[in-house]
C-alpha cells in the first residue's frame, strides 16, 4: 500500500508507511510499548491495544496503521476487536466519561431531562467529547442500578435519583 488515503466519510488519514510524512512525533509512545511487548503477535492484541489506549487516551488511526505495519497484525483484525469492546475508542476521549442511563426504569423517571441538562451544561453531543477535553458523553442501556433511577455514572462513580439541577451540580466538580 502506498497511496496516501482519506477515508470515505472524512475518516482520519491513515498512515501508509515510510515517506508518508504524516506522523507526529507521538509515535514514540507506541514504539516504547512495542519494544516492551516484543515480539508481538495477534495473541497479544488486546493487551497491546489497552496499553496504546492508556498511552494516547484513545486509539489514533495513524498509530494503529503504524503498529499494524510493524507487527504484521492487519488493521482489519484490530478494528474488529476495537469495535467489539466498549473499552476501546478510535476518537479522542475526554478526561472523564459521563455515562447516562437510557434504560426503561431511568427513562420513566425522567432520564431524558437529566441527559439534556447535562448535554447543555457541558456543551457536547451524545457520543462526543467536549472541546476542552473535559468530558466524553455516552448513553448506555441499563447500568444495573435501577433502584437508583435515574442514574448517571461519571468515571467509576454512580449518581442516583438525579434531577437536572443535581446533575449539573455534580459535573461542576470535575476538571
Amino acid at each position, binding site marked *: 500500500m*502506498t497511496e496516501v488515503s482519506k477515508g*470515505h*466519510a472524512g475518516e482520519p488519514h*491513515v498512515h501508509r508507511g*515510510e515517506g508518508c510524512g504524516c506522523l507526529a512525533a507521538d509515535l514514540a509512545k507506541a514504539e516504547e510499548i512495542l519494544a516492551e511487548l516484543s515480539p508481538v503477535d495477534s495473541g497479544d492484541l488486546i493487551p497491546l491495544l489497552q496499553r496504546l489506549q492508556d498511552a494516547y487516551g484513545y486509539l489514533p488511526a495513524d498509530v494503529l496503521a503504524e503498529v499494524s505495519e510493524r507487527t504484521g497484525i492487519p488493521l*482489519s483484525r484490530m478494528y*474488529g476487536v476495537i469495535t467489539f469492546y466498549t473499552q476501546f475508542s478510535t476518537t479522542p476521549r475526554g478526561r472523564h466519561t459521563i455515562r447516562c442511563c437510557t434504560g426503561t426504569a431511568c427513562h420513566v423517571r425522567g432520564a431524558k431531562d437529566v441527559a439534556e441538562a447535562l448535554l447543555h451544561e457541558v456543551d457536547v453531543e451524545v457520543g462526543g467529547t467536549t472541546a476542552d477535553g473535559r468530558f466524553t458523553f455516552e448513553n448506555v442501556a441499563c447500568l444495573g442500578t435501577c433502584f437508583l433511577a435515574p442514574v448517571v455514572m461519571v468515571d467509576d462513580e454512580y449518581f442516583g435519583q438525579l434531577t437536572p439541577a443535581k446533575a449539573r451540580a455534580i459535573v461542576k466538580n470535575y476538571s
Partner: protein
Amino acid sequence: MKENTEKGNTVLVNIDGREVAATVGSSLLDAALAAGIHIPHICHDPRLTPTGACRLCLVEIEGERGFQTSCTRTVAQGMKVRTQTEGVRASRKNTLELLLSEHCVDCLTCDKDGDCLLQDYSYEYQADKARFPNVAPAAGEPNYTTESFALEYDPSKCVRCQKCVRYCQEVQMAEAITMANRGGSIEVSTGIGISLNESSCELCGGCVNVCPTSALYDKQAKGLGRSKDLKKVRTTCTYCGVGCQMDFNVNPKTNRIVRVTSEVGCIPNNGSLCVKGKYAFDFVHSPERLTTPLIKENGEFREATWDEALALVGKRMTEIRDQHGPDAIAFLSSSRCTNEENYLMQKLARTAGRTNNIDQCATTCHGPSVAGLGESLGSGAMTNAIVEIEDVQTLFLIGANPTEAHPIVGLAMKKALRKGAKLVVCDPRDTWMAKRADIHIKHKPGTDNMLINAMMGYIIEKNLHDPKFVEERCENYPAFLENLKGYTIEKAAEECGVPAHLIREAAEMYAKGTPSSIFYTLGITEHSCGTNNVRNLANLAMLTGQIGKRSSGINPLRGQNNVQGACDMGAMHMALSGYQKVTDPAVRAKFEAAWGVTLPTNVGGRVTDFMEHAGEGKLKAFYCFGEDPIRSEPNSTKLAEDMAKIDFLVSQEIFMTETAKLADVILPATCFAEKDGTFANTERRIQRVRKAVDAPGQARPDWQIISQVATAMGYPMSYNDPGEIYDEMAALSPNFAGINYERIDKVGIQWPCPTKEHPGTPFLHAGRFTRGLGLFQAIPHTPPVEVPDAEYPMILSTGRTLFNYNIANMTRKTAAIEHKQPENFVEVHRDDAAAIGIKNGDMVKVETRRGSLVVKAHVARKVRPGMIWMAFHHEESNTNLLTNDAFDTTTRTGEYKACSARISKP
C-alpha cells in the same frame, strides 16, 4: 484450519437411514452434501474454517442431546444422524424467521433474485417474514464500499454469516475486511472504516462470490439483470497462464456480460478468481472495439468491406512473397488467442506464406524456458500441476511474484504455507511472498547464476545432493562440476549483495525440503542470460533430485493465457505443432501429406529478428495478429521507426493499438468472449473457451479470418468450427492426440495425452526425462549488457502488477481497476529518494540511454537501494521507451529486467 491430508480413509455414517461413506476428517455436512442429502447451510464453504454461525445445518445425532451444527462436526464411524426431524425443521424455520427480521426482504428489486440461499430456504421452510418485528439496519448509509467501483455492501441484506471476512482472511489472505461492532449493529467493514481502495483489498471479488445474499454484490452489475434472468457460460480466463475457469453471467436480452462468477470445486481455481478474471471484462463491450475492416489510403484509414480488405491482403502478401522470397514476409501469431487460431496461423505462414518466419510473444517472455528446459529435460513446460502446489514442502521462488502475476497459483502457495511449507524467495523486491518467506534473498538484478552456482557448490560440499539421481538419470555431470569451482558462497554474497549465511540456508532448505519445487517467471528469463538462467535452475533440480515427482519439479509460470498453447501449436520458426522439429524429414513428410504443400526450408526467425530485419529494410510484409509490439517490445522508439519501414503491414486486432495505427490494413477480430476454442494453461491443461456474447459490428472470429486470408493468398482453407481445426491438429501431433472437445467439456486435460484412453499427465519426467537423460550444463555468470556506471548509476527493472495486465488496453477499460491504479509509477528505495530530495508521491524523472519519463515515485524499502522498478501498463507513459533492446543470446528475448538508469527531480 480444516486441511486434511489423509487420503483414502473412509468411515461409514448413517444419515436418515442411509449408509454413507465419508472421508475421515470431513465434516458431517460435507459428507451429507456429497451423498446428495440436502441440509440447508448459509455460512458453510468447503474452502473455509467452519464457524457454525448460521445454525441452519442443525441435525440430530443419536445419543447426543439437542441439535448439532453439522458443518462443525467431524464424521465418526457409526454415527447415526437425522436431518429432517420435526424438531430440526422447526428450529431451522425459527432461525430463518429471525434472519428475515434483520433483513430488508426486497426480492422484487433484488439482483440476487433466483440465486439467493436466504430466498431458497425461506421458501422451502415457508418462513414468515412478519413473525418478528423487522429490525434490519438502514440501507444507503455510507460505508467502506461507497467509493468503490467494484463492489457494494448493503448491510440491510447482510445475514452476518462472515463468509466474506473469512474468505478475505483465510483464502485470499488480504485481511482487508472484518466484522465490526457487536450485537445488533454487527456489520462488515475495513479496518477503521477506510474505503476499500485504501485498504489492503486486492479486488479479487471473493467476498462477493461467497456472499449468500445480495449484501455484497458487484457494483457495475446492479440493475443489469436479476440472477434468474442470467445465463452462465463456462469459459477460461483470458489473462494470465493460470487458466481459471469462470462463468460469464450473460443477460441474453441485452447480449451483455453482466458479471463473472466461478464455481467452487472447479479446476484449477476452485471458485477463486483474481481482479482481472473477476472484473476486467468491460473491454468486451467497449465502444472502442474495432467493428469494421479498415484500409489505409493516403495516410488515413477508411472503412472497407471484408471482401475488399481480404483481397488486398491476399494480393500484396503474395506479391511480396513472390518478389522478395520467404524472408521478406513474416507472421506474428498471438498467445492471447486460441490453440486453433495459433495452429492455423503457423499453417498460414508455412502454406500460403511459404516461410518459417512465424513467432509469437513467447520470445518476449518464456522463450528461454522453452529453449532451456527443452534442452536440459526435453520439455519446456511446467513440470507439475497447480493442485500439487499445496503439498510442496519447500517452495523455491526465484524471479517470480505469483500473488500479483499468477494470483491463483499464489493462492495455492498460500495454502501450502498454511499447511506448513517452507518458503525461499529470491527477488530484488519485497513481494508479498518475500515478506513472508523463511529466507528472502534480495539479490541484485542479473546475478541469478552467481547465486545458483554458489548454492549448488554448497549443496555438493555438504553432501545434500542426490548422487543416485545424478548418476542414473543425468549426463554431463563432470563438466558441470568443473564449472562450479569458481563460485564460492563468499564471492556470490559479494556479487549478489546479500549475506552469505542466507545463501547457505536457502541451499539447505531447498535440498532438504522434499518435496521441493522451483517456481520462476520472467525475473529469470528476461535477461541477456535468460536461457542460461533456466538451464541452471534445471541443474539445481537435477542435482538434488527434486524433479519428476508429485509436487516437485521446475515450474515456469507462463505469462499469457495461451502462451503455452501458442508454443504447443507450432507458432515458432523451428517447430510444428507438438514441438515436432521442422527439420525432421519424417515430420515434414507427415505435414506435407496432410497439408498438400512442400514445407518451406528457410530457417525463419523470432519477433526480435523480424523487427531488426524491418529496420534493415529486408522485411517487406508483416502480418501481426493480436499483439502490439510497439508497446510490448523494449526500446519502443526505435521499434516504431523500424516498423514504419515495412511496405505492407496487416494488423488483426480488437482495438486500435500503437502497432495497428501503422498498419495498411486492419482486420477486426473477436475477443475470447465471442468465440469457441481452447487455451492451454501454464500446467499444460487444455481447456475450453466458449462463446458467451455476439461480436460487435462485422468483427469475425480469428480462425475464420485466417482461413480467408489463406484462401485469398491462394491456399484454400475452410473449417466449419474450431473443433474441426483441433481434430486436424491432434491427428498430426502425438502430444495432443488423445484430447478432443468432448473429453474436456467439464475438466481440461494436461498433455502429453497420446491416446483417447490416456488420462493426461499431471507431472512430467517420472522415472525418465522426456529427453532421456537430463543434461547438466556448465553455466557461467554473465552480467547484464548494461551495467550501472557514473552516468546511469541505477538498475531499472520492469514487470507487471496485480491490477493490470501487460499493455493494459483490456484491463484499463474497467473502472474499478483504473480507480485503483490510475497512473504509471516508479518504486524507489527511500535512501535513493532522500539523496535527490523526493518524497513518496512526488514526481520523479527516470532516464535511460533510450528515453525518459516523468512518473510518480513510490518511496519505500520495497526495492533494493540502487534499484528502481516500473510496470509497463500505461500507454500515456510507456515504460518500454526506457528498456534496453539487448537480447538473450539463445532466444533473442529482451532484457527487460535490468538496464542502467538515473533518477532526478523533474
